[in-house]
């Protein structure tokens, strides 16, 4: 374990002796994400838990930006933090009346969760550290993580979505040498996923539909246009 | 619609008393104040009308307290009278506090309810009066009772609450008889002639 930690330190030392900013921010965001994730688990106030989740996912978006994957970073910000978590906070706020706000977990559950979490962590660390890039190349990779070649761009991704593969040396439509499949774009899987999500959405809406007494015309019924109900 | 001509009068001069200003009660041919109207009212509610005064500036008809609701119902519903709007309900406390003047006063202490009705179609007004004892069977502090007309004119709802609040008249059959202007827990009826301002109200000095 200590040897791998020692390998972490040179990451900070940039080639020309100054502080390697890239490494510094990487560590900062990583630490932030992890600590906030732990805070989410430990917090007992539901709304604070949701807020820490927002911050930790924001930190992971920062990691994506650092790695040069701006599109994925922006996607993370918009979809995860801007979309799902807004709904999560909505739900939490609407239900966080007094009885639900602070959830005290009994000690027994905490110990159990700690054990399971710890085991999972150990497996992950072991898998990560045994990877060749991590342990092997510490010597010559000293210059810190090299920036991705050239100006990263989302266009190859966009065009691949439409079915024109420009990111490989093989023009689209021919067989790729290694695995023999046709290197087609991502259009089909993309459509399947969106239809799937649509089905899930409709199902959820149906299940959550408000049950209304069949006979009652009711005052609320004719005011059903818009409104906050 | 131009109303041309009016009673010319030079400087501010007093009209000779007794000549009733041309009251708008006389509408077209139907003389609402005339004996014909009183006969139809008498016929509709036997024993209702107790007295009338047609010479006053605002001629009024006095009604027995018990018959108030029936008279009002008839006045509201009957086609030819059709008083569909109640303008105002007032309670007047005829009570002279100091004994000297009480002796000279021509009336004995009583409470008087005055209803001003108005017909939007015939554009005619009518004044109903009814005499109530100052206190219910003379126990001071217990307000007299009379039938409520809130069922006939919805505007009476608030007017009767105000009369109850300020002058102390209980309207039987009123949907929600509470004080409207004074705080809910206020004692006494301020517009009574013998009303004494309370010494203090929740610590606020009264007098």
């Amino acid at each position, binding site marked *: 374990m200590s040897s791998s930690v020692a390998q972490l330190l040179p990451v900070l030392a*940039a080639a*020309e*002796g*100054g*502080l390697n*900013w890239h490494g510094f921010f990487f560590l900062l965001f990583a630490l932030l994400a992890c600590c906030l994730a732990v805070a989410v688990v430990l917090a007992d*106030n539901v*709304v*604070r838990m949701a*807020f820490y989740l*927002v911050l930790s996912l*924001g930190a992971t978006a920062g990691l994506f930006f650092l790695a040069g994957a*701006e*599109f994925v*970073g*922006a*996607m993370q*910000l*918009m979809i995860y*933090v*801007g*979309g799902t*978590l*807004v709904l999560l*906070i*909505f739900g939490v*706020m609407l239900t*966080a009346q007094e009885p639900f706000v602070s959830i005290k977990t009994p000690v027994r559950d905490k110990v159990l969760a700690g054990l399971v979490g710890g085991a999972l962590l150990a497996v992950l660390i072991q898998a990560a550290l045994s990877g060749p890039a991590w342990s092997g190349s510490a010597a010559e990779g000293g210059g810190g993580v090299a920036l991705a*070649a*050239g*100006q*990263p*761009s*989302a*266009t190859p991704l966009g*065009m691949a979505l439409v079915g*024109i593969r*420009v990111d490989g*040396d093989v*023009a689209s439509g021919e067989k790729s040498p290694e695995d023999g499949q046709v290197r087609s774009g991502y259009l089909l899987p993309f459509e399947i996923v969106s239809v799937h999500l649509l089905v899930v959405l409709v199902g959820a809406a149906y299940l959550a539909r408000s049950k209304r007494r069949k006979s009652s015309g009711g005052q609320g019924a004719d005011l059903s*246009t*818009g*409104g*906050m109900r | 619609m131009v109303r041309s001509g009016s009673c010319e009068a030079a400087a501010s001069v007093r009209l000779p008393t007794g000549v009733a200003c041309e009251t708008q009660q006389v509408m077209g041919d139907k003389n609402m104040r005339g004996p014909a109207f009183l006969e139809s009212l008498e016929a509709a509610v036997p024993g209702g009308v107790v007295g009338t005064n047609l010479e006053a500036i605002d001629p009024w008809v006095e009604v027995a307290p018990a018959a108030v609701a029936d008279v009002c119902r008839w006045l509201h519903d009957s086609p030819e009278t059709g008083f569909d709007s109640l303008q105002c309900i007032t309670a007047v406390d005829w009570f002279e506090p100091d004994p000297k003047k009480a002796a000279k006063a021509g009336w004995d202490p009583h409470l008087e309810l005055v209803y001003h009705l108005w017909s939007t179609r015939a554009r005619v007004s009518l004044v109903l009066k009814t005499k109530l004892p100052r206190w219910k069977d003379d126990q001071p502090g217990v307000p007299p009772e009379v039938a409520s007309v809130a069922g006939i004119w919805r505007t009476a709802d608030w007017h009767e609450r105000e009369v109850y609040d300020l002058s102390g008249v209980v309207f039987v059959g009123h949907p929600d008889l509470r004080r409207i202007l004074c705080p809910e827990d206020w004692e006494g009826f301020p517009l009574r002639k013998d009303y004494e301002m309370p010494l203090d109200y929740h610590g606020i000095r009264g007098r």
Partner: protein
Amino acid sequence: MAEYLIQTVGLPGWLTWSLLAVLSAVLILNLMAGGALVFIWAERKVSARIQDRLGPTRTGGSFGWLQSLADGIKLLAKEDLMPEGADGMLFRVAPYVSFCASFAAFIGLPFAFDMVGLRLNVGVFYVVAVLGLEVFGVILAGYASASKWSLFGAMREAAQVVSYEVPLGMCIVVPVMLAGTMDLVTIAEKQAGWFTNWYLFHDPFTFVVFWVYVTCAVASVNRAPFDLAEAESELVAGFHTEYSGLRWSFFFMAEYSSMFLVSGLAAVLFLGGWNGPVPIATLLGLSDGTGESTGAIVRLLGLANLLGKATLGVLIMMWIRWTLPRLRIDQVMTTCLKYCTPIAAVMFAGAMTWLWVFPGGVLNLDDGSRRPGEIREGWLEGPGGRSTAVSDAPVDDAPALAEIAEVSK
């Protein structure tokens, strides 16, 4: 700039880089703070002029231009109250969350050709994503102030902003499609030259999309007539009822800076960013007419252009606020779902067919070098590409590009 400092001044490497980082951060922050101050003063003056009165005249000279400073000092001096039942941590953090959200979005906004915090390839997408985060501050503020009124305001605000992001996104896709890229700098470059090159006048569909964008922008920034959150006539003051002093001023600053940001985005996407209506720089021969001029004077001119357009946008928002009454919450939702979104979708389809029918643009003004249909990406230009601040990676798949060019002709 950094090399200069290291070679001549001999500062150690890490100090220069941190200095530069702090400098750019401070620049953007001051732009925002300064902008907010100016706009607070402008709001008072504009509303005064609309209502036939003078507005502040006494503070600092005859035009009362120190009024914002006076407000600032008052807000600083005022005590930061916190209601008794409030959730301490969230109550304090909420204003900073919404302030940082609108501050972070400024990084992507290009002020002149090379004056941009960070030239993100996904500029537009990043700005819209971060703009969506501002609603967190409002929700947390509404919840944490533990008062029924602020919860009402927070609910309305969140529902409105989240639902207005849909039409906003659709309107933004049209100029992105026209320019073929999400990089704000490239979008602005494409609209160089006379104002007829602006995407606003590109085709009737983008013209309508611009006005739908303006409506959605006004709604997503919560300005009248969509300012339900602080509807004083119904709720007392919406989500920031319980705030006072410095915390309240952060909400105020966040609102004004996101107003500036949204109108800046409109300027870049539809009104040609830093390109003025008349290409003075090209006429005077200062720049080479392709919009990517690097001369200092031209950039200052560009900066003036963008700031002018953005300020014009903010003034229009103020003008709308002081004339129109407020909509009801269900009317706000209906305009979003039944009017803005369908119109944006139809216009998007219209713009696409227009592009397909007239690839070179109806007037065929440009000489084909900027055919909107083709993708003009920095790195696709090939070895002979423009010398831009960013080093071009050698491109080895030129044949693939040629093939794309045929496909799209």
